[in-house]
């Protein structure tokens, strides 16, 4: 990457719900072309921060730029068109459409969506591209099945594939590994790394420290709405203060050992 400026810069983003502060981020930068993990305990405001950045929720104050473009006040679909595409913690596949139709909707290059005629050739080209991506995600055999017939893990894959179909500069994944079996987790991690190889920036929310250590280039830690630490995985995850305070002092100990200690 020739361009070393951060792709996303947010300042003083504040969101409170009826007196409860959900997000109070003073300043954060997301490095371009890297994989950044956003971690923190439950209720830290990670998903709310995601919603704010992507326009699905509006902060009381704050400003942020994506690739130099100010995004605050934009509608979610406008944010997506700037090249910042998100997925959801609870997957949102379009159930009564086929897997391939889900992918084709992901494309942003279909003039036929504006009630224009002569879209057939473009659809054919986009379908070829979609099948290529589906093949990478091992969903090509499911292309003509209803998306609602997919398993939970496959839905996660489809949602990620659909986001890629949109050719974003940055992909934001909200807990991509939640509820996915270990075998599929491996392939998801592989896909996330693959996004980086293709020049995309990735920001993802995750709980599992092993995953974060394995895949992330940069880690941002949130707690009680604030950003309390950031750095490389090595720095952040070895900081006992961070680990103890926000992930629990015993997060790495065997439960049986804990019980023995308590009994003693």
């Amino acid at each position, binding site marked *: 990457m020739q361009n070393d400026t951060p792709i996303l810069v947010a300042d003083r983003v504040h969101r409170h719900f009826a007196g409860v502060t959900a997000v109070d981020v003073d300043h954060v930068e997301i490095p371009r072309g890297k994989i950044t993990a956003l971690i923190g305990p439950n209720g830290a405001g990670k998903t709310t921060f995601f919603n704010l950045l992507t326009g699905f929720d509006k902060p009381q104050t704050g400003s942020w730029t994506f690739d130099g473009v100010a995004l605050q006040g934009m509608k979610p679909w406008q944010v997506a068109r700037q090249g910042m595409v998100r997925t959801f913690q609870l997957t*949102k596949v*379009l159930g009564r459409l086929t897997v391939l139709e889900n992918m084709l*909707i992901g494309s942003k290059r279909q003039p*036929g*969506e504006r009630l224009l005629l002569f*879209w057939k050739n473009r659809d054919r080209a986009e379908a070829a591209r979609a099948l290529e991506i589906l093949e990478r995600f091992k969903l090509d055999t499911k292309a003509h099945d*209803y998306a609602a017939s997919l398993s939970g893990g496959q839905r996660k894959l489809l949602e990620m594939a659909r986001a890629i179909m*949109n050719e974003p500069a940055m992909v934001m994944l909200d807990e991509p590994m939640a509820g996915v079996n270990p075998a599929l987790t491996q392939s998801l991690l592989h896909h996330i790394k693959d996004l980086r190889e293709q020049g995309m920036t990735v920001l993802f929310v995750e709980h599992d420290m092993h995953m974060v250590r394995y895949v992330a280039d940069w880690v941002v830690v949130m707690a009680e709405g604030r950003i309390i630490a950031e750095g490389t995985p090595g720095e952040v995850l070895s900081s006992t203060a961070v680990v103890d305070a926000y992930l629990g002092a015993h997060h790495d100990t065997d439960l049986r050992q804990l019980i023995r200690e308590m009994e003693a």
Partner: protein
Amino acid sequence: MDIIWNSLRELITPTTAAYALAAIGLNVHFGFTGLLNFGQAGFVAIGAYGFAISVMTFGFSTPLAIAVTLLLAAAYALLLGVPTLRLRADYLAIVTIAAAEIIRFALNSSAFAKWTGGANGLYNEYSGWLKDSNPYASGVVRIGPWTFGSNDLWIATVDWLVVLATAGVIYLLVCSPWGRVLKGIREDENAMLSLGKNVNLYKLQALVIGGVIGAAAGILYVQPTSVQPFDFATRMTFNMYTMLILGGAATVFGPILGSMIFWVVMRFTDELVTIGVEHGLFDNVTQGSQLRFVLVGVALVLLVVFRPQGILGNRTELSFDAK
């Protein structure tokens, strides 16, 4: 045998055609986009009165009257859609049903009777163009077991041509990427937003297109008869939902088939009741026709239980949970 033939005659009557067309419009809202429009009767009323008043009061030529009426319906759709479509789905339902009733009461009121005829409605002095262009020989035309007045047959012909042409356009629309986006919105609005689709704009387009089709149905509806404000009550909309569910929502020919079956069954039960009265089963027709709606209701319940996707619908589509 007469009872069968009389019932089957409903397959091709202008009323069946007009209802089919309005249900096609409603299908764009409900079946494809997931918009809960409970006031399709309002669009039909705008079509009927808009056309009749344009011709009778303002003396517009027929093509101009049609154009003005359809534009009026589009404006009405924008008026309803712009403030409500960004809210949750149920708000559109409330606003459409209320607006349709406002329209009906306004048309029924004596305040505007100069133009609308108030509760008396409007006599048919607006379909001269249709009668003048009738190519069939005057008098009674026999087709198979049925006889039609020449004018009625011509109106039915025109109506069904409009219905088929509209169904063709809808087929092209819903198979296009635009139709795909509508179905995506029906499935999950937030997913569509996250992929850069301007959901509200698409919903507005769907509301306008379905509403304009509803108004066109209103124009057809009043050609063979007069304009009666009572016709445009909420029951009209609910009958259309019945047709949609019967034929299969989100299919192209579902609303047409639904309208045909609906009117055949209505006529059939009507005839049954008449026979029942003749044989002393009921005291009078009023008593019997209440039983008729019970029969129709039971049939609908059975349909929803045993074939919830309708006749043309796709069972696997419905076997999934809504989300």
